[in-house]
């Protein structure tokens, strides 16, 4: 794929904001494509890992709506192999957070899943997988995905219907509240 670069902005405000959010060391990228060569989902991607980096360097904000943000599996192969110590995985995490904060529309169910997951951690402290699945299905109306596996999973004891929550809910609620507060006051 060819990336068309437009505009004169190099390492401008957007690139700086992304670097601050991700600590990905993105201005060190040499475009050697080692990240893309080893990326397990590069073949599916609208933007390949090295292209994501280049577009951010050039201040192109449309990366925030790239499908790649929610296709990257966070496998860290790119970060491990990069000769310049750039982490596309960290870059993607930063872009995901920025994309969600900017309420960028996405077809992926991953942001919804993340919200449900973090709410469950706050309330229960430990994930109860059956409850997590149920909440996700109700929220996304994907009621029938994987339903065929349910009897088998129950039979094999893989989906206990009850599991203990971790103690200390009130302390956890405070921990989450302090994290949220700190995020707001961050410069």
């Amino acid at each position, binding site marked *: 794929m060819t990336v068309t670069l437009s505009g004169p902005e190099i390492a401008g405000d957007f690139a700086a904001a992304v670097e601050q959010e991700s600590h990905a060391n993105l201005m060190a990228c040499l475009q050697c494509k080692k990240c893309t060569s080893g990326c*397990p*989902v590069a073949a*599916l991607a609208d933007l390949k890992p090295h292209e994501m980096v280049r577009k951010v360097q050039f201040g192109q904000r449309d990366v925030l709506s790239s499908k790649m943000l*929610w*296709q990257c*599996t*966070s*496998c*860290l*192969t790119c*970060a*491990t192999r990069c000769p310049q110590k750039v982490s596309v995985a960290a870059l993607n*995490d930063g872009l*995901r*957070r920025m994309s*969600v904060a900017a309420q960028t529309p996405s077809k*992926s*169910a*991953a942001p919804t*899943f*993340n*919200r449900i*997951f*973090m709410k469950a*951690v706050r309330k229960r*402290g*430990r*994930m*109860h*997988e*059956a409850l*997590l*699945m149920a909440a*996700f299905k109700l929220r996304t109306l994907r009621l029938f*995905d*994987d339903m065929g*596996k349910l009897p*088998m*999973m129950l039979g*094999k*004891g*893989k*989906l*206990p219907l009850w*599991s203990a929550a*971790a*103690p*200390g809910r009130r*302390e*956890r609620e*405070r*921990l*989450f509240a*302090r*994290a949220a507060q*700190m*995020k707001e006051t961050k410069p």
Partner: protein
Amino acid sequence: MSYAFFPGCSMAGTAHDYQKSALAVSKALGLELPEIPGWICCGSTSAHQTDQLLALALPAKSLSAAAGQTVAVGCAACYHRLKAANWEIAQSAEVRQTVAAVVGRDYDGQTEVLHLLEIMARDIGLHKIAAAVKKPLTGLKLVTYYGCLLARPSDVNRFDDPENPTLMDQVLAAAGASVLAWPHKTECCGAGYSITDVAIVQRLTREILAMAKAAGADCIATACPLCQMNLDLRQADTERASGERFGLPVFYFTQLLGLAFGLSRKELGLKSLVVSPHKLLADHGIAI
């Protein structure tokens, strides 16, 4: 020998057979694994994708409860998140201070975290494992699958060689298995999308299963609940989608070790495996 055990949510749920077999094998090796009291979820992928601060504070809360001890982990994702929190907190006073303000308690990032494979191969030692073997896994051809987050990123995890880890190979070879060479030890199974994007998972697991088959393996050994689930629970779907037949049982390495130690199927939770291992084990005279 005693380590503070961080089970993580999967070992307490879908991967209860991993937990069962890990505890049984540890007991046979004289390793005690009392749980960290009040441990909480590491936050996994969802935390680092949504909130950098919580991604550090959640592990820090559990790790500070085990200060002064060494923590044992079975799940590769928990392992990496605990290690990443230690790494970030230990190398920046500012991060340490911020995390302490969120957790409500200072944590120095110094609680050592080890995966069960590291403990068994290095701390307990291969000679002790070999000495505990009663029914060697002779003739069982397997490939070891480490997935992403044990070996990567190598500077943070310090687990083993990031491109060709061998700890699981060594442990299972000590139990008498024939561990085959193959190139997909650390390829990604797409675990993070197991629920939200099954198409990605099927695409990636297909590659792994096909390569294991091509390498001549009878079965796959894993050391992570998410890797195991994607390769085992979704194997039939992957076969249907690609039109291939794999029929590869996917064990936890602790189940294979347990079989070599002469533990029963029940003690090792073999019933919970989706691709049945019984014919394979019977053919090799391993099952009890």
